[in-house]
């Protein structure tokens, strides 16, 4: 048997570490989707009229798409059709109407987050990191709120922002991802329950890393959160999201929307470590992760940088993108996507160059193991007025089994001749020569794979804040355990 075959075994039943359920009573919407569901959610959240109207418009648009069967079909993923009437669109842990402090949060919930490694209590909370914890459809706690307020930074749940800063919500909601954008964006706009909201005022460099942790707990529910981050002129914020879900036989839908806006000279760094339940070794269960993430560099010299480490979910369908509208603006996308078992991931980025001297970089690393199928899908579009724009794209794939797949479908559309675009891609498996070289230095096959895979991902990991890079490395290794070695 060759070294490769010796090393790359079929994926054993790799256990998912976050698969438990929190025993808690929930307040849930009736199953199914109709105008009443929308009104029910909106009333529950005591929303202003403009928001209800917006939701209803989105709902009607979604129903039209559904009737015309205009579901997204272009992605290289396969799954049975979803019955949108068989989903619970809202579920929240039963708590007091209004929480005044962390002490009032159900201890079960606090325990849940502690178990996930995200302690929320005053004593234990992570230094330098403000956390918004979202459980099923609602935000249950946000840490460091007061400290952030001193800097004028607004950070907390979306629902709260709707109550306290409706003018900001109305101004920016849907300004980057309109409800007409795509099928799942329409669904999200209609039924979104909560999410995070962040506004960084002019000239402020946010002193904390902001983090939102999403946890799906209830059965048969979909999670539809909506995140909006606005960085006003000259400001900076680094934001990170993490997520997990219990192990269940059914597929659960997660259709989130994230909108980022940077004004002149502002910068947002957005990192994701995605670890939804991927399904069991036979491909049963797992989260459908259909997410629309887009940033708009509205101002000149602004920058949006996406970094994602995608290891979970049965199916991932997401393309964190940047609209480079302001002159000299910069868009970046760094991604590691791992598929194993029967996971499918169709992910990549869209960079739309509109302003002058805009620059974008795409570094996408796809790792496929077991029966996993990973697709990189990207679009670099240069509009006629984007003179001297620049893009570099690199999308590499690493194959770890002979029954996995790795696909790359990059699109390049250039309508400006002063632009410079380069695209590189390479697909291969871990070479026998590399493994033997490592072995000859006393390094075991498993360790050699670990080294080589981490090396493959290094360019992406180094974009993450330090503690999250460590977490990402650990997560990747845990996911690959039993796949190689």
């Amino acid at each position, binding site marked *: 048997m060759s070294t490769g075959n010796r090393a790359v075994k079929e994926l054993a039943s790799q256990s998912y570490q976050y698969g438990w359920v929190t025993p808690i009573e929930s307040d849930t919407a009736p199953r199914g989707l109709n105008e009443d569901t929308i009104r029910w959610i909106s009333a529950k959240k005591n929303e202003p009229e403009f928001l209800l109207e917006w939701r209803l418009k989105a709902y009607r648009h979604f129903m039209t798409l559904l009737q015309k069967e205009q579901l997204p079909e272009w992605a290289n993923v396969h799954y049975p059709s979803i019955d949108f009437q068989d989903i619970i669109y809202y579920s929240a842990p039963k708590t007091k109407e209004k929480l005044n402090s962390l002490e009032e949060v159900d201890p079960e919930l606090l325990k849940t987050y502690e178990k996930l490694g995200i302690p929320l209590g005053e004593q234990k909370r992570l230094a330098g990191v403000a956390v918004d914890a979202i459980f099923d459809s609602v935000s249950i706690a946000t840490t460091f709120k007061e400290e952030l307020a001193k800097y004028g930074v607004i950070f907390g749940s979306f629902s709260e922002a709707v109550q306290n800063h409706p003018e900001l919500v109305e101004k920016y909601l849907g300004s980057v991802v309109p409800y007409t954008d795509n099928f799942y964006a329409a669904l999200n706009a209609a039924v979104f329950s909560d999410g995070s909201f962040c506004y960084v005022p002019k000239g402020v460099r946010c002193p904390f890393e902001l983090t939102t942790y999403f946890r799906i707990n209830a059965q048969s529910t979909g999670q539809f959160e909506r995140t909006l981050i606005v960085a006003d002129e000259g400001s900076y914020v680094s934001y990170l999201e993490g997520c997990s879900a219990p192990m269940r036989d059914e597929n659960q839908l997660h259709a989130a929307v994230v909108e980022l806006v940077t004004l002149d000279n502002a910068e947002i760094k957005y990192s994701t470590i995605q670890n939804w339940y991927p399904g069991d070794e036979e491909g049963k269960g797992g989260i459908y992760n259909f997410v629309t993430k887009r940033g708009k560099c509205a101002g000149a010299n602004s920058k949006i940088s996406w970094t994602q480490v995608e290891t979970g979910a049965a199916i991932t369908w997401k393309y964190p993108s940047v609209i480079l509208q302001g002159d000299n603006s910069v868009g970046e996308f760094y991604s590691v996507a791992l598929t194993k078992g029967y996971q499918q991931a169709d992910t990549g980025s869209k960079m739309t160059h509109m302003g002058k001297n805009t620059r974008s970089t795409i570094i996408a690393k796809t790792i496929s193991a077991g029966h996993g199928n990973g697709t990189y899908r990207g679009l670099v579009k240069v509009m006629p007025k984007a003179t001297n724009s620049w893009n570099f794209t690199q999308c590499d794939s690493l194959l770890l089994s002979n029954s996995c797949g790795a696909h790359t479908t990059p699109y390049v*559309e*250039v309508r400006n001749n002063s632009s410079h675009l380069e695209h590189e*891609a390479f*697909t291969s498996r871990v070479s026998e020569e590399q493994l033997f070289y490592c072995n000859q230095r006393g390094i075991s096959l498993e360790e050699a794979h670990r080294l080589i895979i981490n090396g493959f991902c290094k360019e992406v990991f180094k974009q993450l804040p330090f503690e999250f890079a460590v977490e990402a490395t650990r997560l990747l290794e845990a996911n690959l355990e039993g796949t190689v070695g």
Partner: protein
Amino acid sequence: MNVSTGMTHRTTVQEGKYLAAFDSFQRNGAVGDPEWIHQLREAAIARFNVLGFPVARRGNEEWKYTDIRPIAATNFQPATGSAQLTLPPPDVDRLTFGNPGWSRIVFVDGVYSQELSALTSLPAGVSVVSLAQALVTHGDMIKQHMARYAPYESEAFTALNTAFAHDGALVQIADGAIAEEPVHLLFLTTGRQQDTVTYPRVLILTGKDSKATVIESYGSLDEGRYFTNAVTEVRMGSGSVLNYYKVQRQSQQAFHVSNTNVSNASGASFNSVNLDLGGGLVRNNLNVLMGEEGCSCVLNGLYLLNGTQHVDNQVIIDHTSSYTTASELYKGILDGKSHSVFHGSIIVRKGIQKVNANQVDKNLLLSDQAEADTKPAFWIYSDDVKCGHGAACGQMDENALFYLKSRGMDDKLARRVLTRAFATQVIDSIGNGAFRAAVGQIVENKLEEWLEAGESR
């Protein structure tokens, strides 16, 4: 025909005209052809009737950047041959790339012209005959191959060509034959009848361990509007080498759709260079099936576009066998408001090992109104592969330009030198020296013409 969808484009699509033309063709034309080909044509037109022209603008990935409604909406009539045409020597010289001595088979508006052909001194072991004649004399042999490599079931233009397949070229290279000199298949459209359509059909069969060079060129006499819907099928013999050069230099108003389907054989090498030097709306599908162990292919291309020209190259290399190697380099030079599309797919099937594949598309944009869309894709279902791809789009390198000027060249010359240099890599991959020189000269003249025109703009 599906008219109930109510989609607006349906109202202008002329598919019905082709059905009517087909009836008349089956009844009146080609009556002497063998029965099997009548049946094949019936099956193909039935398929075309189902497929229709791929005009949908939504979910139509294969035609994402090329809108062929202008073809679908024009009422093209089958060309009636101008077989009696004679050509003055300068035209012959131009159309034969300055090598009138090469053996050639010539078709005028789709019909074989014995007068213009020169088939008396073919290289040893090489046979070139008109397909219409061969259908009568070698019908059974052709039946073994025709429509076997070009899938009319799934591709509308192939279906349409197959429905009207009658004349074209049959090229056979005998086992072990080594032909140094190229044979030239010349499809000439006079452009003297407005809105005509022709269906050239080529079948190339290479024998075991043979080596040959085939030039398939599409030329034009007048600047007319016409539609060429060509299908070429190539079946490689084991260990054979085929250098296949396709040159399209039709009128700036011409519609040109070609489907070239190659079935590669063990140890064989298929080397192609596709040159688009003319045409208005052009789409070339090149499909190479790497179906036997140890086969290889080198697929290169060059497109020179200006005005409102639109050229779309779709290249699919399907590795269904192990130990196969493919390399692909397409380059485009775009001026004016032209639009280029490159869509490459490299597929490596499940369980296929030791595949090496490389794919590159590069575009030089000379004008700020030109558009280049490129999509070099991989579909890999196996692990023991090495695949790379690249794409680049941009304008002339300012540093290089400055360097040349610092050596005394004026702006115009420096630009011409660099533009020409951009094309060199593809031109140099042409194995035959005389043909390489001729193509180099055509490219050079064209670039000079553009640069002159650009100055007067």
